[in-house]
């Protein structure tokens, strides 16, 4: 049985929307202190719509995959959608995660929630990503 779903493999081998957005007006960073996984989202939100979005991530392959997947889900959508995503929904979008990978769904939900929270409170300087694990 493969360790990863085809969707997860697709995203960690061909990650979408890599990088930091120079024109970002909202940023969101989360890091898991236990496993060391980190995700940074930088977005340009215009009229409540995620007009552009980039991610950087350092961590296991599943965490890279969910970060990439998240950008494809949010791009062009209302920023409020980020607040509705929970770990179960993200796991569903991945096509399934093994028990030892499920923490990345929570990580992705956390960074999505932080994005919408930072947008609503006007925060645009969340912590930068560091590759140190």
């Amino acid at each position: 049985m493969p360790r990863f779903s085809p969707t997860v493999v697709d995203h960690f081998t061909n990650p979408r929307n890599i990088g930091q957005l120079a024109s970002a007006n909202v940023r969101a960073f989360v890091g898991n202190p236990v496993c060391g996984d980190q995700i940074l989202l930088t977005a340009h939100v215009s009229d409540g719509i995620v007009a552009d979005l980039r991610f950087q991530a350092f961590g296991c392959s599943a965490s890279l995959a969910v970060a990439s997947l998240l950008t494809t889900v949010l791009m062009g959508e209302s920023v409020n959608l980020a607040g509705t995503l929970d770990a179960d929904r993200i796991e569903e979008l991945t096509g399934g995660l093994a028990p030892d990978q499920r923490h990345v769904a929570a990580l992705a939900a956390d960074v999505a929630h932080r994005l919408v929270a930072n947008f609503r409170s006007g925060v645009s300087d969340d912590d930068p990503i560091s590759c140190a694990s």
Partner: protein
Amino acid sequence: MTIPFPAPPDLIYLDHAATAPLCEAAASAIRDGLRLYGNPSSRHDAGQSAHDALVAARGQVAVLLGCAPEEVVFTGGGSEAINLALQGTFAGRRGHLVTTAIEHSAVLECAAALSRRGVDVTVVGPEPSGHVDPARIAAALRPDTVLVSVMHANNETGAVQPVEEITGLAHAAGALVHVDAVQTAGKLPVAGLGADLVSVSAHKFGGPKGIGALRLSEPHTLEPLIHGGGQESGRRAGTENMLGILGMAAAAAYATEHLDNDLTRAAARRLRKRLVDGLSVVGGVRVNADDPVVPETVSVSFDGIRADTLADVLDAQGICVSTGSACHAGQDSPSHVLTAMGVSVEQAKATVRLSFGHGTTAADIDAAVAATVAAVDRLRRVSGTAVSGAS
């Protein structure tokens, strides 16, 4: 259930240090052995046929190990051979054991178990090069040192240890020597090792899993781990694993043929150079052992990446590599070998092991290099990690 055999042809297998593919000679011997159903201990013809095959197989393994057939004890693998060597030597007595911090967990866990039973254990650290300094072994020796256990080559870095010099020092001090040759048997000559005990594992050199051997040199004796029917001259009870033994013997014979072949060894060194040179173009690359090394095993760190993620990306492309040793796969703790060498935790977690073997071609190496360089570059872009020196 369908089991693919052999491995898919599009797979680039660079994890020979974990286990080598079964060689055709071993597969053939195992197939032939399926008809050999007699118990080698039985006196009837069926048993005698099995007994004859066992004798011949023991002889072939003895040639690889450079010893008399009577000195070969078949075991259930390398870890059992190591346990038999250490626990069997210290059975019923205490005294002092000297080993090193870069040993396989089979040795280190065995040493820890012996320590709990009252054996004094000294663990000698390696140099940053990945090698153990014989002078540090000499400094650890005591009048009550019973055994020195050191590996021939490290399973993670490939660093070849000065086992001959260590053996001389230990013998001069009146201590026995065990060499864990699991990573070298079939690659480097082990027949000339002067150690009293030598452990090997068949699946590392093209034999099947679940079978190994301990060379137990005369006149050393030890207490068996498994008591029973007196097989293996009372040193390891249990009806012999004939299929495993036949496969191991065929792989040993095949390996013996190729051991002294300069072309084979030169080809391995060329492949290593091709691999290391190819990987270096991505920058931020460090090879974790100096010469002498087993050319087939390359431990390499890539600044700014996580090794488990890189291994997953390569796996998705049909390229099999390992993070540290296979025994650490799935564990979060950094390699005890690398950290003992002074490698930082961050670098240890950025380390993959690529280990090639018989059948690996230059084209395989080139494809693995290209995929690895591309993957490292992409992973660094994903994390926003800039690495100086990349070309």
